Protein backbone atom coordinates (compact mmCIF):
# COMPACT_ATOMS: atom_id res chain seq x y z
CA UNK A 1 0.00 0.00 0.00
CA UNK A 2 2.82 2.38 0.83
CA UNK A 3 4.57 1.77 -2.43
CA UNK A 4 1.37 2.41 -4.28
CA UNK A 5 1.16 5.80 -2.57
CA UNK A 6 4.78 6.55 -3.29
CA UNK A 7 4.20 5.87 -6.96
CA UNK A 8 1.12 8.06 -7.09
CA UNK A 9 2.81 10.97 -5.41
CA UNK A 10 5.94 10.53 -7.50
CA UNK A 11 3.82 10.45 -10.64
CA UNK A 12 2.33 13.80 -9.73
CA UNK A 13 5.28 15.59 -8.22
CA UNK A 14 8.12 14.59 -10.54
CA UNK A 15 6.51 15.81 -13.77
CA UNK A 16 5.55 18.99 -11.94
CA UNK A 17 9.12 19.64 -10.88
CA UNK A 18 10.45 18.82 -14.35
CA UNK A 19 7.97 21.21 -15.92
CA UNK A 20 8.82 23.99 -13.53
CA UNK A 21 12.52 23.37 -14.14
CA UNK A 22 11.94 23.56 -17.87
CA UNK A 23 10.08 26.80 -17.28
CA UNK A 24 13.35 28.48 -16.41
CA UNK A 25 14.67 28.02 -19.88
CA UNK A 26 11.77 30.02 -21.21
CA UNK A 27 11.09 33.70 -21.13
CA UNK A 28 7.53 34.17 -19.89
CA UNK A 29 7.18 37.39 -21.81
CA UNK A 30 8.36 36.02 -25.15
CA UNK A 31 5.49 34.91 -27.29
CA UNK A 32 6.69 32.91 -30.29
CA UNK A 33 5.46 34.57 -33.46
CA UNK A 34 3.43 32.58 -35.91
CA UNK A 35 3.93 34.95 -38.82
CA UNK A 36 7.33 33.95 -40.31
CA UNK A 37 6.78 31.92 -43.46
CA UNK A 38 3.39 33.44 -44.10
CA UNK A 39 2.38 36.15 -46.52
CA UNK A 40 2.91 39.57 -45.00
CA UNK A 41 -0.45 41.01 -43.94
CA UNK A 42 -1.49 44.07 -45.86
CA UNK A 43 -2.29 47.27 -44.05
CA UNK A 44 -2.65 50.96 -44.62
CA UNK A 45 -0.31 53.38 -42.90
CA UNK A 46 -0.19 57.14 -42.86
CA UNK A 47 3.10 58.99 -43.15
CA UNK A 48 3.67 61.39 -40.26
CA UNK A 49 2.08 64.63 -41.37
CA UNK A 50 1.46 63.09 -44.79
CA UNK A 51 -0.53 60.79 -47.00
CA UNK A 52 -1.90 57.31 -46.44
CA UNK A 53 -0.09 54.49 -48.19
CA UNK A 54 -0.58 50.77 -48.51
CA UNK A 55 2.22 48.67 -47.05
CA UNK A 56 2.35 46.61 -50.25
CA UNK A 57 3.27 49.70 -52.25
CA UNK A 58 6.74 49.49 -50.67
CA UNK A 59 7.22 45.97 -52.00
CA UNK A 60 9.65 44.91 -54.70
CA UNK A 61 12.63 44.69 -52.40
CA UNK A 62 13.07 43.40 -48.86
CA UNK A 63 11.24 45.48 -46.29
CA UNK A 64 12.34 45.98 -42.71
CA UNK A 65 9.24 46.91 -40.77
CA UNK A 66 10.13 48.36 -37.38
CA UNK A 67 7.50 49.12 -34.73
CA UNK A 68 8.65 51.71 -32.21
CA UNK A 69 7.42 54.44 -29.88
CA UNK A 70 8.84 57.63 -28.46
CA UNK A 71 8.19 56.38 -24.92
CA UNK A 72 10.13 53.18 -25.50
CA UNK A 73 13.61 53.32 -24.00
CA UNK A 74 15.28 50.43 -25.87
CA UNK A 75 13.96 51.87 -29.13
CA UNK A 76 16.31 54.80 -28.78
CA UNK A 77 19.54 52.87 -29.28
CA UNK A 78 17.87 50.77 -31.94
CA UNK A 79 16.85 53.89 -33.81
CA UNK A 80 20.48 54.91 -34.37
CA UNK A 81 21.40 51.41 -35.48
CA UNK A 82 18.55 51.27 -37.99
CA UNK A 83 19.47 54.68 -39.40
CA UNK A 84 23.01 53.49 -40.03
CA UNK A 85 21.77 50.27 -41.58
CA UNK A 86 19.31 52.11 -43.82
CA UNK A 87 22.11 54.33 -45.05
CA UNK A 88 24.40 51.33 -45.62
CA UNK A 89 21.89 49.26 -47.58
CA UNK A 90 20.60 52.25 -49.52
CA UNK A 91 18.26 51.29 -52.31
CA UNK A 92 18.55 47.56 -51.84
CA UNK A 93 16.40 47.40 -48.71
CA UNK A 94 13.32 49.41 -47.78
CA UNK A 95 13.32 50.43 -44.12
CA UNK A 96 10.01 51.48 -42.64
CA UNK A 97 9.20 52.75 -39.19
CA UNK A 98 5.75 52.34 -37.66
CA UNK A 99 4.81 54.34 -34.59
CA UNK A 100 3.11 52.14 -32.03
CA UNK A 101 0.68 53.39 -29.37
CA UNK A 102 1.91 56.93 -29.44
CA UNK A 103 0.78 60.46 -30.21
CA UNK A 104 1.75 61.80 -33.62
CA UNK A 105 3.06 64.97 -31.98
CA UNK A 106 5.40 63.03 -29.69
CA UNK A 107 6.71 61.00 -32.59
CA UNK A 108 7.31 64.10 -34.67
CA UNK A 109 9.22 65.81 -31.87
CA UNK A 110 11.25 62.66 -31.24
CA UNK A 111 12.20 62.35 -34.91
CA UNK A 112 13.00 66.05 -35.19
CA UNK A 113 15.74 65.56 -32.59
CA UNK A 114 17.17 62.46 -34.20
CA UNK A 115 16.73 62.72 -37.98
CA UNK A 116 15.32 59.83 -39.89
CA UNK A 117 16.43 58.67 -43.31
CA UNK A 118 13.48 56.40 -44.08
CA UNK A 119 9.67 56.77 -44.06
CA UNK A 120 8.02 56.92 -40.63
CA UNK A 121 4.35 56.02 -40.52
CA UNK A 122 1.46 56.39 -38.13
CA UNK A 123 -0.77 53.38 -37.55
CA UNK A 124 -4.35 54.53 -36.95
CA UNK A 125 -6.15 52.40 -34.34
CA UNK A 126 -3.14 50.05 -34.29
CA UNK A 127 -4.55 48.20 -37.29
CA UNK A 128 -1.16 47.27 -38.61
CA UNK A 129 0.24 46.36 -35.19
CA UNK A 130 -2.68 43.99 -34.62
CA UNK A 131 -2.29 42.50 -38.09
CA UNK A 132 1.34 41.75 -37.32
CA UNK A 133 0.63 40.47 -33.84
CA UNK A 134 2.75 43.07 -32.13
CA UNK A 135 2.85 42.62 -28.36
CA UNK A 136 5.24 45.39 -27.42
CA UNK A 137 7.96 47.57 -28.83
CA UNK A 138 10.41 47.36 -30.38
CA UNK A 139 9.46 44.58 -32.75
CA UNK A 140 10.86 44.22 -36.23
CA UNK A 141 9.58 42.20 -39.16
CA UNK A 142 11.64 41.23 -42.18
CA UNK A 143 9.51 40.91 -45.32
CA UNK A 144 11.17 39.56 -48.45
CA UNK A 145 10.75 40.93 -51.96
CA UNK A 146 7.95 38.47 -52.71
CA UNK A 147 5.95 39.68 -49.74
CA UNK A 148 6.55 36.80 -47.32
CA UNK A 149 7.48 37.40 -43.69
CA UNK A 150 10.97 35.96 -43.42
CA UNK A 151 11.73 36.67 -39.78
CA UNK A 152 10.65 38.54 -36.69
CA UNK A 153 12.80 40.11 -34.05
CA UNK A 154 11.34 40.83 -30.62
CA UNK A 155 13.24 43.52 -28.76
CA UNK A 156 15.92 45.73 -30.27
CA UNK A 157 17.66 44.28 -33.31
CA UNK A 158 21.36 43.63 -32.98
CA UNK A 159 23.78 44.54 -35.79
CA UNK A 160 24.94 40.97 -36.41
CA UNK A 161 21.43 39.56 -36.63
CA UNK A 162 20.32 42.39 -38.86
CA UNK A 163 23.08 41.89 -41.42
CA UNK A 164 22.68 38.11 -41.35
CA UNK A 165 18.93 38.20 -41.95
CA UNK A 166 19.20 40.87 -44.63
CA UNK A 167 22.09 39.03 -46.27
CA UNK A 168 20.01 35.87 -46.55
CA UNK A 169 17.02 37.74 -47.90
CA UNK A 170 19.07 39.60 -50.48
CA UNK A 171 20.80 36.39 -51.55
CA UNK A 172 17.45 34.69 -52.03
CA UNK A 173 16.19 37.71 -53.95
CA UNK A 174 18.97 37.31 -56.54
CA UNK A 175 18.06 34.64 -59.05
Amino acid sequence: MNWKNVTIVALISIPLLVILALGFGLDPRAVPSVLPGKAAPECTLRAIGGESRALSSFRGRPVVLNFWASWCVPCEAEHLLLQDAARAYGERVQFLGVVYQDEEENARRYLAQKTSTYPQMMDPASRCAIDYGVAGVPETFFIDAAGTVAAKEVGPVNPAGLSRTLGQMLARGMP
Partner: protein
Amino acid sequence: MTLPIVTVVAVLLVETSTPGAGAKAEVTLTETDLAHSIGKELRCPVCQGMPIAESPSQMAQDMMTRVHQMLAEGKSRQEIFDYFVERYGEWVLLAPKPTGMNLTLWLLPAAALLIGLLLVWRFARKRQGAAPVPEAKPAAADATLEAIRDEVNE
Protein backbone atom coordinates in the same frame (compact mmCIF):
# COMPACT_ATOMS: atom_id res chain seq x y z
CA MET B 1 -21.73 8.86 -13.23
CA THR B 2 -19.70 12.00 -12.69
CA LEU B 3 -18.55 12.39 -16.24
CA PRO B 4 -22.10 13.00 -17.45
CA ILE B 5 -22.53 15.48 -14.63
CA VAL B 6 -19.41 17.32 -15.64
CA THR B 7 -20.48 17.27 -19.26
CA VAL B 8 -23.95 18.45 -18.46
CA VAL B 9 -22.66 21.26 -16.33
CA ALA B 10 -20.08 22.11 -18.95
CA VAL B 11 -22.79 22.28 -21.59
CA LEU B 12 -24.87 24.47 -19.32
CA LEU B 13 -21.86 26.69 -18.84
CA VAL B 14 -21.34 27.09 -22.52
CA GLU B 15 -24.96 27.92 -22.98
CA THR B 16 -25.27 30.40 -20.19
CA SER B 17 -21.98 32.12 -19.70
CA THR B 18 -20.58 32.20 -23.21
CA PRO B 19 -23.63 33.30 -25.08
CA GLY B 20 -22.06 33.43 -28.52
CA ALA B 21 -21.41 29.71 -28.62
CA GLY B 22 -24.78 28.68 -29.91
CA ALA B 23 -26.07 30.13 -33.14
CA LYS B 24 -29.43 30.74 -31.51
CA ALA B 25 -27.97 32.78 -28.70
CA GLU B 26 -26.01 34.87 -31.13
CA VAL B 27 -29.16 36.27 -32.64
CA THR B 28 -30.58 37.47 -29.37
CA LEU B 29 -27.42 39.26 -28.32
CA THR B 30 -26.68 42.85 -29.04
CA GLU B 31 -23.47 43.47 -30.90
CA THR B 32 -21.83 45.08 -27.87
CA ASP B 33 -22.49 42.05 -25.72
CA LEU B 34 -21.21 39.74 -28.42
CA ALA B 35 -18.06 41.80 -28.85
CA HIS B 36 -17.58 41.74 -25.10
CA SER B 37 -18.02 37.99 -24.89
CA ILE B 38 -15.47 37.55 -27.68
CA GLY B 39 -13.12 40.02 -26.06
CA LYS B 40 -13.38 38.08 -22.78
CA GLU B 41 -11.70 35.12 -24.48
CA LEU B 42 -8.88 37.00 -26.16
CA ARG B 43 -5.74 37.73 -24.24
CA CYS B 44 -4.40 41.27 -24.19
CA PRO B 45 -0.85 40.98 -25.54
CA VAL B 46 0.62 43.90 -23.63
CA CYS B 47 -1.00 43.11 -20.31
CA GLN B 48 -0.46 40.20 -18.02
CA GLY B 49 -3.05 37.57 -18.63
CA MET B 50 -6.00 39.93 -18.94
CA PRO B 51 -8.68 39.64 -21.59
CA ILE B 52 -8.85 42.52 -24.05
CA ALA B 53 -12.45 43.19 -23.04
CA GLU B 54 -11.30 44.14 -19.56
CA SER B 55 -7.89 45.66 -19.98
CA PRO B 56 -7.63 49.42 -19.76
CA SER B 57 -4.55 49.48 -22.01
CA GLN B 58 -4.70 51.29 -25.32
CA MET B 59 -3.65 48.21 -27.28
CA ALA B 60 -6.49 46.16 -25.85
CA GLN B 61 -8.95 48.90 -26.69
CA ASP B 62 -7.64 49.02 -30.25
CA MET B 63 -8.08 45.27 -30.47
CA MET B 64 -11.64 45.61 -29.20
CA THR B 65 -12.24 48.20 -31.91
CA ARG B 66 -11.01 45.62 -34.41
CA VAL B 67 -13.44 43.06 -32.99
CA HIS B 68 -16.30 45.53 -33.38
CA GLN B 69 -15.24 46.28 -36.94
CA MET B 70 -15.12 42.63 -37.88
CA LEU B 71 -18.54 42.04 -36.36
CA ALA B 72 -19.85 44.94 -38.37
CA GLU B 73 -18.34 43.33 -41.47
CA GLY B 74 -20.45 40.29 -40.66
CA LYS B 75 -17.62 38.05 -39.45
CA SER B 76 -18.55 35.20 -37.14
CA ARG B 77 -17.18 34.58 -33.68
CA GLN B 78 -15.00 31.77 -34.97
CA GLU B 79 -13.64 33.85 -37.82
CA ILE B 80 -12.63 36.54 -35.38
CA PHE B 81 -10.85 34.03 -33.16
CA ASP B 82 -9.10 32.59 -36.22
CA TYR B 83 -8.00 36.05 -37.27
CA PHE B 84 -6.31 36.68 -33.95
CA VAL B 85 -4.84 33.18 -33.66
CA GLU B 86 -3.31 33.58 -37.12
CA ARG B 87 -1.49 36.67 -35.89
CA TYR B 88 -0.74 36.03 -32.26
CA GLY B 89 -0.79 32.25 -32.12
CA GLU B 90 -2.89 29.99 -29.90
CA TRP B 91 -1.52 31.97 -27.00
CA VAL B 92 -4.08 34.68 -27.63
CA LEU B 93 -6.98 32.40 -26.73
CA LEU B 94 -7.68 32.46 -23.00
CA ALA B 95 -9.77 29.32 -23.32
CA PRO B 96 -7.54 26.71 -24.93
CA LYS B 97 -9.06 24.83 -27.86
CA PRO B 98 -10.50 21.52 -26.69
CA THR B 99 -8.51 19.43 -29.14
CA GLY B 100 -5.46 17.20 -29.03
CA MET B 101 -3.29 17.47 -25.98
CA ASN B 102 -5.41 20.26 -24.56
CA LEU B 103 -8.06 17.66 -23.83
CA THR B 104 -5.99 16.56 -20.84
CA LEU B 105 -7.12 19.76 -19.17
CA TRP B 106 -10.62 18.34 -18.94
CA LEU B 107 -9.98 14.63 -19.00
CA LEU B 108 -7.41 14.44 -16.23
CA PRO B 109 -9.60 16.09 -13.56
CA ALA B 110 -12.59 14.04 -14.70
CA ALA B 111 -10.56 10.84 -14.54
CA ALA B 112 -9.16 11.82 -11.17
CA LEU B 113 -12.69 12.42 -9.90
CA LEU B 114 -13.83 9.00 -11.10
CA ILE B 115 -10.86 7.17 -9.63
CA GLY B 116 -11.25 9.17 -6.44
CA LEU B 117 -14.90 8.21 -6.12
CA LEU B 118 -13.98 4.57 -6.60
CA LEU B 119 -11.31 4.79 -3.92
CA VAL B 120 -13.64 6.54 -1.49
CA TRP B 121 -16.27 3.90 -2.08
CA ARG B 122 -13.80 1.08 -1.51
CA PHE B 123 -12.37 2.76 1.55
CA ALA B 124 -15.76 3.30 3.13
CA ARG B 125 -16.76 -0.31 2.39
CA LYS B 126 -13.54 -1.81 3.63
CA ARG B 127 -13.53 0.16 6.82
CA GLN B 128 -17.16 -0.47 7.47
CA GLY B 129 -16.78 -2.54 10.55
CA ALA B 130 -19.00 -5.28 11.79
CA ALA B 131 -16.71 -5.46 14.76
CA PRO B 132 -17.46 -3.28 17.76
CA VAL B 133 -16.24 0.16 17.03
CA PRO B 134 -13.56 1.71 19.15
CA GLU B 135 -14.52 5.31 18.90
CA ALA B 136 -12.97 8.53 19.91
CA LYS B 137 -16.29 9.67 21.23
CA PRO B 138 -19.52 7.87 21.91
CA ALA B 139 -21.33 7.82 18.60
CA ALA B 140 -24.15 10.24 19.00
CA ALA B 141 -26.94 9.16 16.76
CA ASP B 142 -28.41 12.57 16.41
CA ALA B 143 -27.96 16.18 17.15
CA THR B 144 -29.92 16.07 20.40
CA LEU B 145 -27.46 13.75 22.03
CA GLU B 146 -24.62 15.86 20.76
CA ALA B 147 -26.22 18.96 22.15
CA ILE B 148 -26.66 17.30 25.50
CA ARG B 149 -23.00 16.43 25.50
CA ASP B 150 -22.17 20.03 24.78
CA GLU B 151 -24.21 21.04 27.78
CA VAL B 152 -22.40 18.54 29.91
CA ASN B 153 -19.08 19.83 28.76
CA GLU B 154 -19.98 23.31 29.65
